[in-house]
């Protein structure tokens, strides 16, 4: 494929790949073998940039697989420290990254903040690190924000916006929560505008607040034309119906696309193999769990989010009884 962006169907989790002729970047590395399988299928052996939004396993588990596979060389790896994250996979990953750094195999630094905007640009691709701010990253999970609220792992999630030839393309919102958004407002970053929004926290509850109010707030800051929910069928009940409804209430024609078919939309999987999916690897393809599957934007036609809306809609109409994105 020519220069492109792939929002990978990894099941419940996030992973995206940006690729030009001579450069590859990975933004988040969801769990399982999906990222490894995608990279192998695409013939990619070099990953120049790896940006991990935060320390949750559904955003980083696949990097353990990439590192330990021995099939890829990596350049820079950036993520933020997280003192409250006690998961063993977080230890597995940090041990593996430290080991690779000591061996000179990678350039690993535990830092990814808004000060890094521009440092990962390559050719026509610009990468803007919108969050976390230096302040929030320095305070860190377990501490408190400017308003005395407790900062969580999600609060310091990186929010990354990608532009192609100066045109904004996609906003990867990681798992940012209300505290993270409050901080952006505080520093005057209220314009998160982007045509595509990869919705935070897979459309589930981001923190303890009202998910519909949060969805409304972020939708108004981003003003997307497409919203992608990166979900695993039957896992965690995502996207939350109230979140999808809040997005639909924003007016205009916002396309809503889930990587896999939510059980809210259909209790049963499709009877026949899907024909609408992009050819790129998708975790749910073989078990007929995809809805939009892996979604791709070719840089030469950035307005088209593949699979395109009409064929995706035909699939939805043929295979769901009450799709969240189509309910009256």
């Amino acid at each position, binding site marked *: 494929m020519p220069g492109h962006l792939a929002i990978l169907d990894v099941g419940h989790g996030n992973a995206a790949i940006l690729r030009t002729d001579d450069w590859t970047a990975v933004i988040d590395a969801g769990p399982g*073998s999906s990222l*490894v399988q995608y990279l192998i299928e695409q013939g990619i052996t070099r990953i120049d940039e790896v940006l991990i939004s935060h320390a949750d396993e559904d955003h980083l588990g696949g990097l353990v697989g990439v590192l330990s596979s021995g099939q890829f060389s990596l350049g820079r790896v950036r993520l933020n420290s997280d003192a409250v994250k006690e998961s063993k996979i977080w230890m*597995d990953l940090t041990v593996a990254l430290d080991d690779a750094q000591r061996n000179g195999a990678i350039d690993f630094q535990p830092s990814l903040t808004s000060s890094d905007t521009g440092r990962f640009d390559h050719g026509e691709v610009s990468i803007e690190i919108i969050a976390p701010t230096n302040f929030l990253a320095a305070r860190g999970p377990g501490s408190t924000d400017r308003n005395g609220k407790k900062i969580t792992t999600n609060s310091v999630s990186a929010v990354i916006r990608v532009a192609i030839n100066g045109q904004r393309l996609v906003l990867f919102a990681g798992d940012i929560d209300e505290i993270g958004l409050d901080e952006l407002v505080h520093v005057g970053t209220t314009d998160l505008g982007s045509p595509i929004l990869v919705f935070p926290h897979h459309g589930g509850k981001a923190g303890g607040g009202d998910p519909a109010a949060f969805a409304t707030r972020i939708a108004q800051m981003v003003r997307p034309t497409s919203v992608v929910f990166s979900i695993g069928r039957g896992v965690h009940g995502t996207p939350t119906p109230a979140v999808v409804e809040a997005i639909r209430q924003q007016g205009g024609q916002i396309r809503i696309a889930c990587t896999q078919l939510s059980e809210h939309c259909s209790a049963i999987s499709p009877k026949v193999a899907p024909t609408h999916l992009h050819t790129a690897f998708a975790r749910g393809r073989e078990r007929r769990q995809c809805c939009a599957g892996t979604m791709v934007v070719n840089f030469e036609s950035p307005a088209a989010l593949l699979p395109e809306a009409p064929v995706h809609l035909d699939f939805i109409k043929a295979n769901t009884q009450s799709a969240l994105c189509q309910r009256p």
Partner: protein
Amino acid sequence: MALKIDDRTLERIAIVDDDKSVRDTYETSVEELEVEAVNESGPLPSLDEFVNAAPARADAAVCDFKLRVKNYANFDGAELVARWFDRGFPALLCTKWDRASIDELRKYRSRIPVLVRPTDLDPERIVEGLTICIQELAGKHLSSRKSYRTLVRVEEVTADRSPYAYVVVPAWNPSEVVRLLMSDIPGSIQPRVKTDARLYAEVNLGAESYEDLFFRSWEGQ
């Protein structure tokens, strides 16, 4: 009549089970596909002999895991199906998925493309399963069957009469502990299998469930 799957034509399917009533049930499912069922009434000869004998009279097989009952055979179905895989003969392995059976067959799992519950063995499942087998024999693996070198962390080792290693494969599922028979891990690696050890092996990271995982090509760090 015959069943055509990819470039193979299946005219006869062998049915291997110690229980005649089960064989008869399977036979009905096979015959619904308009394929001749070859009912292996037993007792079966040695493993080496049967590995070669069945493919001479059938094009594929449906085989139960527990074959030693009532001296029907002196080997288990898992080893038989794996040996058939090595010689390019497609076969489905039937098991009730009890945990002990899963432990016992895991060392052969990389060469057993499909496990089927006996109650699920209808004509549709036979075709679906044999298609997976035949494609895997042709080198076309499902993503759930492709193995990759990956980190394996040892959580606990028990020193019972049948020692087990409890391991986590972080790149597969960091939350699930997988029980392995220590005897399935190569002898040269076993001394390194200790609590909190981090080892490497090839694992099918796309596996959907615990039962489908296999491990091979172990490395000590």
